[in-house]
């Protein structure tokens, strides 16, 4: 008889912080004490609070432990699992509510404003056990569509729900399905785009690692809706845990005849093949993804014809993102109205974001559309570390833009983000504080696109490189009058001329930073000054003689012997030797060294 479950996160974040060893230590300890029949250890998907991992939750009470190490195991077993006394020092609490910490996880700031639909099973079930998925209504939606609904009804339900693609563009999912359903063809395909590539984004990864069957079930539903019997999941080879769990899930689904021939005895056939992406960002672009599945160099092809008409191997194909698919079964079971009741007028449901950058709770959150950026960053994300000031939030990855403080109260949905010069993208959200140079941020994202451009069309291949060269000049203190205008002109031409979405949106990080932080560009170009003191080449590091005690700590630390002076007298920095490494600043105990 199992009397307690210990859930240990098996997502990538917690796995990297050692949850494998933790689980092994716990199992050994339980065995030693003869508790293995009473207490079950479950490896789950991601809980979201990756920064505080490895994470462990003990049920039935729901105690949420953070940063647990194998050394903590004997204490947890002895105190909590045997004596029922919570190990307070390991409990997570940001609720500010006294004594609530032990069992009301949902009252914590991090979870209170979240609504987990796509992530509903992440952290709840063992993703390697199909029975656990089925126990939580898994495959009931597939059964329902196959036995009670016509393909048209399925499509209508998805249309009515208002679900839009979560991969970036936000195209209505139901319409995509409808187009593909309408094209007559003996062979059609359902493709799941799991080639998540935005820097810092791991929404899809977490869904695949925590709830792979949700994606498989949704693909089968989509197959039924459009008349496809074959599906492909294109997943990055760099996601080994996701791949392993998908492989297990597909195998289990086949064993239960939830994939394969004559599913639910209805005559409907559907099966899924995995394809591994080799890490090219552009393969997340749907036509490049198809080309890659076909075994060719992953490059975009022109649209029209759209994949719904002529897609994989020339056949009608729908391509849906992982998170989009993770919503499907819930919509079928709970109804379009339920889904449409969440969110804003044109953006329904929830959206998963990967919080990163200068934010306390780095991790994964799912919020109803319409939540403001301020709520995400301050209420859920716990604000900016070290009391620094918020400067901007970057959404939409390399295709998106930077949102300044003045737009913190914008309700997040597809259209409002576009209106303020960014985009939803796949859900990366990177927070920047006063120490971030916005020209440097633009440069960072452009470096990424330059590196990831496939090279097929000239505007992207050469144009992004030329933009990067200008940004490099500016941040190196060689900016010239006219550079901003040239950047804008190039950006506009690339946007109008590039072949695919990657190229067409590549200039966005530059355009949006120019829109909100033009003064920073101008300071770099005309004053040769980086307002955030970030750009090395522009920084002037000097010793304030009033504050310097002449202790020589700085000069001893300087790697290039640029600092000299007499003990107990103010030291000076030789600017011709200084490499702006800032080691001296860290060493000075008197705050005497300043950057300008």
């Amino acid at each position, binding site marked *: 008889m199992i009397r307690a479950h210990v859930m240990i996160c098996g997502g990538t974040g917690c796995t990297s912080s050692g949850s494998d060893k933790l689980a092994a230590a716990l199992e050994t300890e339980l065995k030693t004490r003869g508790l293995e029949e009473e207490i079950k250890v479950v490896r789950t998907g991601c809980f979201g609070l990756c920064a505080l991992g490895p994470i462990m939750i003990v049920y039935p009470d729901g105690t949420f432990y953070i940063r647990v190490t194998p050394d903590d195991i004997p204490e947890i077993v002895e105190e909590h699992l045997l004596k029922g006394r919570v190990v307070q020092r390991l409990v997570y609490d940001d609720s500010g509510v006294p004594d609530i910490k032990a069992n009301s996880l949902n009252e914590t700031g991090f979870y209170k404003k979240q609504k987990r639909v796509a992530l509903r099973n992440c952290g709840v079930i063992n993703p390697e056990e199909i029975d656990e998925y089925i126990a939580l209504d898994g495959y009931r939606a597939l059964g329902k569509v196959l036995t009670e609904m016509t393909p048209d009804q399925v499509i209508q339900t998805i249309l009515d729900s208002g679900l839009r693609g979560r991969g970036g563009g936000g195209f209505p999912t139901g319409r995509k399905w409808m187009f593909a359903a309408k094209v007559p063809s003996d062979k059609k395909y359902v493709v799941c785009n799991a080639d998540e590539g935005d820097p810092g984004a791991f929404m899809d990864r977490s869904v695949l690692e925590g709830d792979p069957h949700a994606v498989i079930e949704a693909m089968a539903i989509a197959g039924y809706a459009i008349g496809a019997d074959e599906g492909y999941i294109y997943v990055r080879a760099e996601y080994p845990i996701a791949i392993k769990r998908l492989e297990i899930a597909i195998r289990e689904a086949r064993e239960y005849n939830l994939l394969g021939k004559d599913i639910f005895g209805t005559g409907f056939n559907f099966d899924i093949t995995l394809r591994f992406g080799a890490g090219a960002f552009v393969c997340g672009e749907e036509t490049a993804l198809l080309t890659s599945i076909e075994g060719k160099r992953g490059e975009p092809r022109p649209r029209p014809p759209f994949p719904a008409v002529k897609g994989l191997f020339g056949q009608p194909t729908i391509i849906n993102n992982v998170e989009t698919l993770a919503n499907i079964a819930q919509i079928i079971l709970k109804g379009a109205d339920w889904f449409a009741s969440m969110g804003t007028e044109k953006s329904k449901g929830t959206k998963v974001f990967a919080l990163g950058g200068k934010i306390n709770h780095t991790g994964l959150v799912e919020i109803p559309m319409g939540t403001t950026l301020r709520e995400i960053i301050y209420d859920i994300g716990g604000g900016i570390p070290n009391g620094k000031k918020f400067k901007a939030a970057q959404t939409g990855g390399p295709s998106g833009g930077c949102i300044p403080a003045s737009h913190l109260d914008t309700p997040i949905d597809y259209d409002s983000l576009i209106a303020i010069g960014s985009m939803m993208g796949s859900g990366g959200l990177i927070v920047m504080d006063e120490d971030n140079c916005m020209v440097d941020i633009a440069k960072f994202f452009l470096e990424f696109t330059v590196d990831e451009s496939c090279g097929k069309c000239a505007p992207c291949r050469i144009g992004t490189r*030329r933009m990067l060269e200008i940004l490099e000049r500016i941040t190196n203190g060689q900016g010239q009058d006219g550079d901003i205008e040239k950047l804008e002109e190039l950006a506009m031409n690339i946007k109008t001329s590039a072949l695919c979405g990657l190229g067409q949106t590549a200039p966005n990080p530059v355009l949006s930073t120019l829109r909100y932080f033009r003064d920073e560009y101008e300071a770099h170009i005309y004053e040769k000054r980086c307002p955030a003191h970030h750009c090395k080449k522009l920084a002037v590091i000097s010793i304030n003689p009033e504050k310097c005690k002449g202790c020589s700590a700085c000069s001893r630390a300087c790697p290039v012997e640029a600092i000299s002076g007499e003990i107990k007298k103010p030291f000076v920095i030789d600017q011709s030797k200084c490499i702006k490494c800032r080691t001296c600043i860290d060493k000075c105990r008197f705050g005497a060294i300043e950057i300008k």
Partner: protein
Amino acid sequence: MMNTVNITIDGIKVTVPADYTVLEAAKEAKVYIPTLCYLKGINQIGACRMCLVEASGTRGLAAACVLPVTDGMTVTTNNDKIRKARKSTLELLLSNHNRECTSCIRSRNCEFQTLCNEYGVDGYPYDGAKTESTIDDVSPSIVRDNSKCILCRRCVAACNDVQKIGAIGVGRRGFKTRVGCIYDKSLADSPCVNCGQCIAACPTGALHEKDSTADVWKALADPDKYVVVQPAPAVRAALGEEFGMPVGTCVTGKLAASLRRLGFDKVFDTDFAADLTIMEEGTEFLGRIKNNGVLPMITSCSPGWIKYCETFYPEFIPNLSSCKSPHEMMGAVIKTYFAEKNNIDPEKIYTVSVMPCTAKKFEAKRGELGRDGIQDVDAVITTRELARMIRTAGIDFTELDDEDFDDVLGESTGAGVIFGATGGVMEAALRTVYEVVTGKTLENVNFEAVRGTEGVKEATIDVGGTPVRVAVANGTGNASALLEKVKSGEKHYDFIEIMGCPGGCVTGGGQPILTAKQQLSLDAKTLRASALYKEDEGKTLRKSHENPSIKKIYAEFFGEPNSHKAHELLHTSYVPRKKYNI
């Protein structure tokens, strides 16, 4: 009835087939849309972004070359936004381009240069770093210079999709993207068959033939050298284009005259050797039938095809005719028969072949094609290189009076002339084989079934009661399709003609280069071929065995076709080759 749609382009209404692209429709409306990566029937990938247009029903600008027409579509091809986008793309391409245009082989015939002129690109506003580039000049036939490559990928499509060879492809990505061979190896170490179709596809100077004109000039200037030249049949059908004459003009007389002006000691004609080839190959074919030899017999005139066979289909090597290619036969004849007759030391003879072909440069260097350390052919220049020599010599080509080739190796029949078109060797062979087998005069010498530019043609010819099943393939891609059917047993033939280049020699890799714009509006394969068929029609003698000089050479020198001496001088052998030399 064909499905059609109505579409308005720049205010001009046209009705076009429903499967047209906007670019094709624009041609019907007589609207010119600039292109760089587009090459009719070969490359339609929407990569270069030059053909951007505004079209109803599409977001932003769309590439006309890949945009399907829809009924009622309205298209704008010329407005400020479009011009700006095109010009900006040209400026970007130029910023990453080797701009030594004055010394470029394609100057004045460069599609990129033309567009930059048309769009008034007058500076380098986006100058910056350039993509790392290399020059690969190891191959005896083809030089690749990535610094001039604009990554239109027309060469890649020609090599992969048309010729099905795949020697070159696109490697790396982003700004580092470049066209090249596997592991950055040279073409010489790749399965390249030297056909030069990549050169014919290239809009810039990134691909060109390995230049041999310097060697030829040097030989011409050497008083100790006796320099003999022979132009291939197809050269006369295209050389005029280099001097502004319309595609399909036959310039045989001017060709002979210009070669004489250049200072060659003898101006012979490969057409003679084509007749000689028919004597040898026809006899070989009849021998194979009679002695239960390996069939189908496959022609061996095309060195691109030969290397393709050796590399990709070595199992067909026994099927290859052992005949040398015509110009190699000619080289051997010049350095033996002609040398003996005229008492010239063969070592002093320098033979130059003017060929529509880059693969002939590779062929001429094959060790088995010569004897005693003397190669049959010393230099091969392409039609383009000859045109450059004519220009350098200040010869006003269009004003030249027609002249004849020199006796005796300059005399030919209509059968020899048509070697330059796909199906020509087969037709020439059939004319002779028919008469040899039946002993009767062939009344209608035109075998229409093997003419035309389809990739694979087949026919069954009644030769005195014996049905002879023949097939003709042009282009290695089509050859592959044909051979696969032979291999699987689906098709049975007795005699197959294969030419390495699509269209045969008239559109060989050494011929004058037509721009994508020209290729969109005219069919060079057909036009150049008809120039040759017209020359054939005009000849009194149209069967190789009727050529008096051929009769003479057998009587005086070889005895009879396939004689021991003929085998020694006019036949060769082949070797299986590895695809990669790595």
